[in-house]
């Protein structure tokens, strides 16, 4: 036991020694000693020499309190030569910090005078990183839990490699410049300005709110996103939103890497602080109830030539605004939203104006935001779109399908077209043979010719002749559904609801609905029941007023009583519902769609079943 005691005592002694030694030997002392040696060789006067000879490594720190919370920056403990102009070609960490006129530095009598002095600004106010760290790993913010790694320099270990390689570069520092230099087109932050312009040009402003700039409500508020998220998240989310938020409806915009970089820098500069702004101004900004007019409105309008007709003005507006970052028109194709080339044949003026003002007034589950642009612009853009009547000369049925249908329904007809993930209800999967043969041909002809109101399926009646429509249908049957259409036995379903509409009937219908239907259709009958994500096609949103108005009682009865082949909708008469029950349910569904206003009053308001919040605080 005594031997064991001796051994363990020795261990403790050695261990303590190691700990103590470790504490007092650091890299920064070595760096400073190197500096002293090198500076000694460059010394010109004996006074300088003797000062350097006697100099011992000392912790260098600057305490800065002008930028939010008081911060202590110890970067100069390693970067000791940062203000010594003789070291501009030395190896890091002993290199001089560059001077430049862009940063406001002034060359006086051959000597540079720094505008942003380290004693006033410290280092992390511009470069980020962890000021109090005394090892490179700590100070540069390499540790995964540190929220502010050095901008454009430190790549944290858990960043995806293909994203990380874009995130190096001095330009990322501009995001921090913008925290003081927040003016719109500040010369020193060109990428912030570019990112800001892209924020409007790409259409981000429609869904996202940034204080003072935009008031979108569909996506999260980005006013402080630069503080909340790191650059890799911002970049990655722009590239593929669903990789980070699986249920996101954010489009995957077609952007070049340069554009993404500018956007990331702009977003990183949104930190909810503006050190160049007075407290009073900040307070006004925070408490104003006025919605900011999107910058692009003024910017775009200022570029318009004078004396244009409404349609010509509309053309320039469509090109100037963000429309084409989603839609297709002419040479531009965002790849996200429908093709507008034949919009004049497909929609009328009332529809277009309403859709501009509040897209959900016409397509209740549309993911197009209400952009809040001036009404006059909407009128002009409508006038322009009405002139888009050039459906490309389509020849055969196959080509018709490929040009007009495939964008949504997919080249294979499986409902997985380019636009499909952004559309609600999703485009029909035409490969479902059971569905395709269960409905009369007339119904499909009507869907194509007159469109399906309340959805994104447009009326092609003015684009395609009846013959062409039949041709496309034949093509779909033969090549996509691989089914033969056959005559159907007519089912015994009333044409009109035999149960009269009454409050009692609707109330009974509600009871049955709550017992049977909410699993898929949801408690609110909006198609968002707990099972809804597991079935394809998704359950119908029964609050889609435009759709319901266009749906006959006969069709509702048929769907409920006999189910819908090729979908998860069961045949409810097999589960014991009587015709009266179905009648009550139909009355309930109708009652849900009577009190909703379908025409909005102002361009900013959004009616309907929108759940907004999530980030609006607890």
């Amino acid at each position: 036991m005594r031997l064991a005691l001796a051994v363990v005592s020795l261990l403790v002694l050695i261990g303590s020694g190691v700990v103590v030694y470790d504490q007092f030997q650091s890299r920064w002392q070595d760096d400073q000693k190197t500096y002293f040696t090198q500076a000694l060789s460059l010394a010109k006067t004996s006074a300088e020499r003797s000062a350097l000879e006697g100099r011992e490594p000392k912790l260098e720190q600057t305490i800065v309190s002008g930028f939010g919370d008081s911060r202590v920056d110890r970067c100069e403990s390693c970067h000791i030569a940062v203000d010594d102009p003789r070291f501009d070609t030395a190896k890091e960490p002993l290199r001089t910090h560059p001077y430049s006129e862009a940063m406001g530095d002034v060359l006086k009598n051959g000597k540079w005078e720094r505008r942003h002095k380290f004693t006033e600004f410290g280092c992390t106010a511009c470069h980020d990183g962890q000021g109090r760290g005394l090892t490179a790993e700590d100070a540069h913010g390499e540790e995964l839990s540190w929220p502010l790694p050095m901008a454009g320099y430190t790549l944290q270990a858990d960043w995806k490699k293909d994203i990380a390689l874009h995130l190096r570069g001095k330009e990322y520092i501009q995001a921090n410049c913008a925290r003081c230099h927040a003016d719109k087109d500040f010369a020193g932050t060109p990428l912030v300005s570019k990112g800001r312009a892209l924020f409007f040009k790409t259409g981000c402003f429609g869904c996202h709110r940034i204080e003072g700039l935009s008031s979108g409500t569909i996506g999260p508020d980005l006013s402080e996103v630069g503080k909340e998220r790191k650059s890799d998240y911002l970049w990655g989310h722009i590239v593929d939103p669903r990789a980070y938020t699986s249920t996101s409806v954010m489009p995957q915009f077609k952007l070049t890497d340069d554009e993404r970089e500018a956007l990331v820098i702009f977003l990183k500069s949104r930190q909810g602080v503006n050190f160049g702004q007075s407290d009073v101004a900040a307070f006004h900004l925070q408490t104003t109830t006025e919605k900011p007019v999107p910058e692009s409105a003024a910017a775009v309008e200022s570029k318009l030539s004078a004396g244009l007709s409404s349609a010509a003005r509309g053309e320039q507006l469509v090109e100037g605004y963000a429309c084409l970052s989603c839609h297709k028109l002419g040479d531009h194709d965002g790849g996200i939203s429908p093709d507008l080339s034949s919009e004049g044949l497909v929609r009328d003026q009332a529809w277009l104006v309403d859709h501009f003002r509040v897209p959900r007034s016409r397509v209740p589950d549309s993911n197009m935001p209400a952009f809040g642009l001036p009404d006059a612009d909407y009128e002009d853009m409508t006038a322009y779109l009405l002139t888009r009547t050039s459906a490309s000369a389509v020849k055969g049925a196959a080509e018709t399908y490929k040009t007009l249908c495939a964008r949504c329904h997919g080249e294979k007809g499986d409902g997985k077209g380019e636009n499909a993930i952004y559309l609600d209800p999703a485009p029909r999967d035409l490969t479902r043979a059971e569905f395709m043969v269960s409905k009369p041909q007339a119904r499909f002809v009507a869907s194509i010719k007159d469109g399906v109101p309340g959805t994104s399926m447009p009326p092609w009646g003015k684009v395609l002749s009846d013959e062409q429509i039949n041709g496309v249908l034949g093509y779909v049957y033969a090549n996509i559904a691989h089914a033969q259409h056959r005559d159907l036995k007519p089912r015994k379903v009333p044409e009109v609801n035999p149960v009269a509409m009454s409050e009692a009937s609707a109330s009974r219908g509600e009871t049955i609905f709550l017992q049977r239907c909410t699993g898929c259709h949801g408690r609110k009958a909006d198609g968002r029941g707990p099972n809804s994500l597991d079935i394809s096609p998704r359950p119908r949103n029964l609050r889609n007023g435009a759709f319901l108005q266009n749906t006959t009682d006969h069709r509702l009865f048929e769907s409920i009583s006999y189910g819908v082949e090729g979908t998860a909708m069961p045949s409810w008469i097999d589960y014991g519902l009587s015709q009266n029950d179905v009648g009550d349910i139909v009355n309930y569904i109708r009652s849900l769609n009577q009190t909703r206003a379908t025409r909005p009053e102002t361009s900013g308001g959004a009616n309907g079943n929108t759940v907004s919040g999530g980030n609006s605080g607890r």
Partner: protein
Amino acid sequence: MSNEKSSIVKDLVNLPANVVRSVFRNPLPSSDRGRAATSFTNFFLHIQPVRVSRQALRPTYTMGLGLISFFLFVILTVTGILLMFYYVPSTTQAYDRMLDLRSSVAFGIILRNMHRWAAHAMVAVVFLHMCRVFLTGSYKPPREFNWLVGVALFILTLFSSFTGYLLPWDQLAFWAITVGTSIAGYAPLVGHALRFMLLGDATVGQEALLRFYVLHVVVLPVVLTLFVAIHFWRIRKDGGLARPESVIQAPAKVPVSVEIAEQPVSAMPMGGTVVVAAPTRRFTIQGLVRGPLVKVGKLEEDTVFSWPNLLIAELFVLLLTVAGVMAVSYFFNAPLEQPVNVMHPPNPAKAPWYFLGLQEQVSYSAFWGGVGVPAIELLLLMLVPYIDRSKVGVGRWFARERVWANVLFLTFVIINVILIIIGTFFRGANWQFVSPF
């Protein structure tokens, strides 16, 4: 005159020796009597018996687990007090202080690491100590009350660790405590009030931080110290560590009056030999006390003097514990995650590892998993020495007479360990099963 002067000089010359002798009244012992005297004339050492069973000293018997727990507590107290000089229990300052400890404070990293790893170790070692005590049947009468004190100490240790867990005020801390206090909220009748009392608010915030801080640095250490003191006292009163009764004594016939003559003793040579004639003393029996027999004049054969054997063993365990904690703290950093963000719970949000078994249970049933089953387990634990009263199998590991008790206990232990393992490695986002490989 010259007499006084020479006596003053003599006093000055003898000053160092006199100082030492006044502090250490008993010199370093060189005889058995001296060794005995050292044990009971020293303030710190008299908690220990004069002689201690050799069996109790055997490392394979106890593995020193109780001692390790105690020394970990000492390490925690010392490092804790040092940390208290730097830490501020404010939601706006706490995290920054943690960062400062890591980067700015001399020895800050090692200090914090030692505190953290010693805390985790203490929970584990206390648990292992409890297992050792059970599996050697050392809870049996007359040690039932000490077993209860031990269970209380276990709960206090868990609670100490839990209150300390919140103090860094990072994401890990915040959500672990959110989950932990919500489990507490499931207790019947008192759950809501209990949770409110812990948090001082509806949610974890500044109030909770302050309360947990006070509990962690004042209330719990004081209560723990008290219970530890009772625990040690009880060990002595119960006759030392439990060991098999190898010797059955016949009751000794004791005369009514006993005369003990003391032998003359020589004091330690420090300026000559002094012979003191000890007076003769008479002792009268006051009464007979029930309890373990104190054997007068007849010693168990397998005991040794506490000084120096027990001391050396304790010192060894102390230094081993310190060495272990120091080594782990040197190589592994205590975690510090992102600062608290109430809008972004991590997915999954996990309680500290010793509560993960509980959290796993809670994911099946909030009440039964979080309150019901643990309460039943705790109750059974406390009742064990009152249910199992037979005195067989005490002091031996896995005694065959006690096989069922051991099997039952080990079953519970293994189930809990498995639950903790599942909760730690096999649960991912949304508490779904994931493979850790």
